[in-house]
């Protein structure tokens, strides 16, 4: 047990090539998925907050429900869409990092939208009369509100990163866990553990947790700084 831990730390200390590749790919895929997901999820959440139309409540419930979407389900759906006989088969994306980005985006967009909506809605309730008198369009209002809530919305982005980095099912299915091509931290941990190569699995687990903790610490400090600056 202790030996395994030391072996894991030795891998970390020596910047083991395999390990570094896996961590780097993980970060690239998940951060890309979150950035693209935020470009859709933030406006979607803000739009749900300020829009008035029949069926809005239904859509809100739907988006909230999709927050808990099982990642294997997303994996299967994206797999079917990207497989050779699927509608997007000709793109040749299956078993590539691109496929993993798409799958993670589908997990992250509803999460970010669902967390954004109530935050922006509170601000909208407070500011709507003034924005209306000033002649703001819905789009301008959404933009202003997202900007004004930016520090609270960090939490939504953080949740998105957490979800994207930690899920296994979807990337396993659409990426195929191919060594040096689509092997990310979670799929590598699952594989190495089942093979009995515990040091690599533990080393990856340590990195995964460190990354998540570091992001949370950064967000915490940004929020505290914002509190002080904007009261």
């Amino acid at each position, binding site marked *: 047990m202790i030996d395994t831990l030391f072996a894991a730390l030795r891998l970390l200390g020596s910047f083991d090539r395999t390990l570094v590749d896996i961590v780097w790919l993980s970060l690239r895929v998940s951060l890309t998925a979150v950035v693209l997901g935020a470009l859709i999820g933030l406006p979607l959440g803000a739009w749900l907050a300020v829009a008035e139309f029949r069926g809005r409540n239904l859509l809100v419930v739907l988006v909230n429900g999709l927050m808990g979407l099982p990642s294997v389900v997303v994996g299967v759906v994206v797999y079917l869409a990207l497989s050779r006989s699927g509608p997007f088969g000709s793109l040749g994306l299956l078993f590539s990092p691109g496929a993993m980005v798409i799958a993670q985006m589908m997990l992250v967009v509803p999460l970010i939208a669902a967390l954004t909506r109530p935050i922006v809605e509170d601000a909208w309730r*407070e500011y709507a009369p003034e*924005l209306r008198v*000033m002649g703001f369009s819905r789009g301008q209002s959404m933009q202003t509100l997202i900007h004004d809530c930016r520090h609270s919305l960090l939490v939504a982005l953080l949740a998105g990163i957490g979800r994207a980095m930690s899920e296994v099912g979807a990337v396993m299915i659409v990426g195929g866990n191919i060594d040096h091509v689509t092997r990310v931290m979670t799929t590598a941990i699952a594989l190495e553990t089942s093979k009995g190569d515990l040091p690599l699995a533990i080393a990856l687990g340590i990195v995964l947790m460190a990354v998540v903790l570091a992001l949370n610490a950064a967000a915490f400090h940004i929020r505290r700084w914002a509190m002080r600056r904007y*009261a």
Partner: protein
Amino acid sequence: MFPIELAGVGFRPDGQCVLSGIDLQLDGDGISILLGPNGVGKTVLLRMIAGLQPVSEGRLTWGAASRPDEAVAMVFQQPMILRASVLDNAALGMKPLAFGRRERRRRAHEMLERVGLADRAADSARLLSGGERQRLALARAWAVQPRLLLLDEPTASLDPSAVDAVEDIIRGIRTDGCKVLMTTHNLGQATRLADDVIFLADGRVQEHAPARQFFARPRSNAARRFIQAELPWRIRFDE
């Protein structure tokens, strides 16, 4: 947009009667002050004139138009202060207008100078005091060069010197040719600022008169009682 005319306007939320049969005509210059006891419907009336509150009873017209145009600005009792700099807050109202970014900032700066906040331009607006927030909100409204400015108790809970500063700004805005319609519970302020007074009680306009006439010789008993009760000293009217 002028004259703004209200004919038989009423407001009855869930059966209770707040406003009924409001007839009022507002011309495009001077400062009109809405007076009346708490809950009489002053804020509701301002919101209607701003186009925020649908008029379900009676008729409200802005000149020939059936809705207010973009030359209306309103400052709420608790103005919206965004988590941004004072300058950005002052420039906010120009966002929907056809100004370039540089022009917006230039004008916002000019307005901050007029309200005495130019040295705070780069500060976070959320750190401003209540009086400074009111001045910022007035700068924001002024920057869009409105033809009609609606103010809901712009000096509630301000200290005397802040009240003085805000009143100076309001006079400046009128001098620029903007019509001001405001509410206040400060009768001293009403005597200092008002060109005409609109007195609401029991859901109706009891009196709409030039300020001098209203304070010297209020016609209705309700107005007399109101003035007597709100002044810190007792006065007796002739007649």
